[in-house]
């Protein structure tokens, strides 16, 4: 019964939070956004006291149910382990192994140091919620969008506007590689030994493990009934039941309830601590976990060489004939000194110190503006670029979804007055000067009227006009950069600001 409750609630949580990452329309976040907000790390980084207290109490009461129900990465591993179990056709796939304490605490210490030092990339690499977001955004969302596009294809033929096509685009090669590596590593670990990641690497697992040692309800072995057959240990994916000594390592038990029904003697039960049965304390032994971790590094290197963006060559048109389309020339990203982060982030510091790099904002950005950073310090944290779109005035999606307080909620009105950067003009690329054509597309599309067109020759009002930027008014939305006709580099681009301000 307990196991069924766990299975059902885990399935629901997992499905819903996955939907949150898959949805590109931004419409379900109003309903399911809380699922991201109750994740441990985002709650800590957002200083969401209510959620933190709730999670602590939950663990003190019932053990690490968080790991079995709320954490999507935990449930994903259960899924992988289940597949592994089926494939191996083994009824008793697991066995007890002692905790690898030096690794657990070592990783946790590293993790805490990384948070304090603001090394977002390391935090994102280790944190379970970030890892799941990475996998969902990079590996699952393309499939989801592919399905949507198939529906859109049929809708178009049926003259329906219910589905619209969305583009799948490669946001960041390193992040994709890390997502694949994370997935493969987890798959191998879960396939072989269930919850190895959760009990040796996951810093959240280690923290909750501290608490779950003292949980009120826990799995307990009745030594009077136990005949030492070891069935419970052979079914424990956390490898935390030492049947010989009748001991359970509560810091590693994820309260999955799998063992309860396996015991033919009825000797193992989930019950409050005051119904204490005779148990002995666990003791630590020697460990080894050697060859599995070599995988990720090699994967990184092979994948990097395989991925390369394609450059389209352009054709020349000799004589004016009717029809045909000018080939689209590729736009290359501008070289920014300071990265751009979305309105609501307040400052780059706020972004880097709160962001879990879960990719939720990247998933939901409808304008192809947000993408994971490739910078080593902020690896996988979002940053903006305007080659494919710009930060549109009616959209505040990223600020609505961020669970960690890295992008705080903002209204469209506040956004239109928040300066996240300022436009810079590059004379050498500007079309009125290079092609001799009158343009002004930047001026026409500037939402704050920060751009004016002035004669290019100071004393000649009839000379062709060029844009000038009033940086005081510019909010850095990138409409000018995105819609500039110059290629491959825009003649106007947005330079990021360290701290955002109201203009």
């Amino acid at each position: 019964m307990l196991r069924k409750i766990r299975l059902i609630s885990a399935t629901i949580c997992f499905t819903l939070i996955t939907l949150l990452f898959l949805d590109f329309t931004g419409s379900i976040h109003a309903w399911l956004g809380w699922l991201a907000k109750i994740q441990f790390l985002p709650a800590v980084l957002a200083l969401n006291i209510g959620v933190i207290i709730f999670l602590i109490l939950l663990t003190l009461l019932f053990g690490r149910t968080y790991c079995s129900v709320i954490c999507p990465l935990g449930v994903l591993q259960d899924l992988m382990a289940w597949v592994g179990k089926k494939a191996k056709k083994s009824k008793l796939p697991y066995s007890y192994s002692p905790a690898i304490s030096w690794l657990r605490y070592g990783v946790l210490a590293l993790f805490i140091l990384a948070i304090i030092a603001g090394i977002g990339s390391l935090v994102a690499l280790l944190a379970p919620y970030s890892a799941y977001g990475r996998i969902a955004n990079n590996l699952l969302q393309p499939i989801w969008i592919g399905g949507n596009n198939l529906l859109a294809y049929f809708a178009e033929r049926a003259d329906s506007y219910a589905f619209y096509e969305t583009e799948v685009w490669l946001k960041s090669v390193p992040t994709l590689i890390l997502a694949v590596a994370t997935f493969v590593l987890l798959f191998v670990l879960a396939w072989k030994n269930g919850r190895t990641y959760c009990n040796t690497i996951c810093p959240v697992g280690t923290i909750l493990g501290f608490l779950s040692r003292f949980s009120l309800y826990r799995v307990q072995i009745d030594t009077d009934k136990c005949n030492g057959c070891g069935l419970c240990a052979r079914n424990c994916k956390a490898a935390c039941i030492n049947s010989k000594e009748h001991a359970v390592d509560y810091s590693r038990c994820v309260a999955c309830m799998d063992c309860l029904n396996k015991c033919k003697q009825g000797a193992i039960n989930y019950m409050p601590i005051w119904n204490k049965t005779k148990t002995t304390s666990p003791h630590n032994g020697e460990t080894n976990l050697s060859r599995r971790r070599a995988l990720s590094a090699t994967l990184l290197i092979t994948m990097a060489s395989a991925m390369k963006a394609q450059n389209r060559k352009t054709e020349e048109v000799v004589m004016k004939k009717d029809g045909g389309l000018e080939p689209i020339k590729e736009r290359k990203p501008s070289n920014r000194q300071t990265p751009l982060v979305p309105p609501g982030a307040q400052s780059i510091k706020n972004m880097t110190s709160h962001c879990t790099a879960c990719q939720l904002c990247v998933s939901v950005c409808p304008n192809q503006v947000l993408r994971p950073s490739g910078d080593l310090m902020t690896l996988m944290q979002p940053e903006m670029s305007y080659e494919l779109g710009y930060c549109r005035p009616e959209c505040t999606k990223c600020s609505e979804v961020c669970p960690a307080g890295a992008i705080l909620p903002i209204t469209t009105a506040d956004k239109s007055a928040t300066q996240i950067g300022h436009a810079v003009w590059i004379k050498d690329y500007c079309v009125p000067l290079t092609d001799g054509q009158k343009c002004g597309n930047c001026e026409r599309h500037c939402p704050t009227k920060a751009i004016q067109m002035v004669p290019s020759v100071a004393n000649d009002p009839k000379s062709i006009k060029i844009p000038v930027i009033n940086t005081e008014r510019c909010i850095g939305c990138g409409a000018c950069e995105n819609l500039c006709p110059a290629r491959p580099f825009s003649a106007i681009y947005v330079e990021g600001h360290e701290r955002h301000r109201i203009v």
Partner: protein
Amino acid sequence: MENKTNHLDRRDFLKIVGITAATSTASLYGCAPKAEKAIPEATALGPIPTDKMTYRINPTTKDKVSLLGYGCMRWPTVPAPDGKGEMIDQDAVNKLVDYAIAHGVNYFDTSPVYVQGWSEESTGIALKRHPREKFYIATKLSNFSPATWSREESIKMYKNSFKKLQVDYIDYLLLHGVGMGNGMKAFNERFVDNGILDFLLKEREAGRIRNLGWSFHGDVKVFDEVLNMEVQWDFVQIQLNYIDWQHASGRNVNAEYLYGELAKRNVPAVIMEPLLGGRLSNVPDHVVARLKQQRPESSVASWAFRFAGSPEHVLTVLSGMTYMEHLQDNIRTYSPLEPLTEEEKQFLYDTASLIKEYPTIPCNDCKYCMPCPYAIDIPAILLHYNKCVNAGNIPESSQDENYKKARQAFLVGYDRSVPKLRQANHCIGCNQCSPHCPQRINIPRELQRIDKFVEQLKQGTL
């Protein structure tokens, strides 16, 4: 009976099925005309006649010209095998030409600039497969760009047409787009100052041009002046349809006047844009209902063709038929032509004012404006806008009853019809396109208006 069927064994059953199938297919094929077995024909109205086409006689050369002329400006294209752009679907062109000739069409109108410059060659390939006396070929001196104004360049373009079309004489040669550009100045620069007109008159005497004429767009002063020149014009090509008859848009001239001037002088008129690039077949629903009520079995387009073909000085009516169904429908309309009655004419004039109430942009998808140097797909944007106008999907304010639906249809349809990087917000207003537009559309202004509308829909500020 039941007993018998029960006793049929499998082999007998298959035999019977096989025989029935064979006989029924044989009899079906037997009915169809021999040449085009593979092409399905509308059977509800009976087969499409092969020998009932209406012909008009050219007063000077006595050519017997089919009332339906084939416009070679809209040949079907397919994506090019190298993935860059597209190319003409020659098999489809051959099939269309064969079908047209088999059903009595004998006038083919092309130009060196049509379909990215491929039309003449493709038309030539398709026609080469038929006896030369079976068809009349019309092509143009399309020396629009100043680079081709010199005598040498213009003659080179003219000679190249013979090569591309694989012919040694041209039945109908046109000075292309008289009236476009800068009034009589442009005409003189293109045809008079460089001596090209004299050259072409000599070519006519030599028999390499059988009929010399011109196509007209735009400035009426140029029309009058060129028509009154000391030159015998064998024909003139004008835009005529039931909207342009009295309600010509922009700077177009009412066809009633143009046709009247030609008729006075007994100059045959070749008609272009009888259907306004499809705008007269793709009309709002209530206009469809209105036309269908009169003649439920005739297509909406057939009204426009009957209108264009009814005046007796019309030599031929050009239609750029990309699809077999359009070709078949038009052949049916003119095999034979049923001239409009006076009541029907009045009915169409009234219909014209109904259509004019819908603020569509007068784009006929001729693609003269293309390619845009900044990669915008101009006709696709304008056509999408027109489609939404006709479907009632251009909301005037967010308070409109169907606002949500119309907004979704406009925006989703926009992304489907035009790739994002070819949409109106990329128009920089350089205005290189507008001078090429025979309908005199101020293209940048329309694109920027549509862009503003899109912004209002997206931002919800309508």
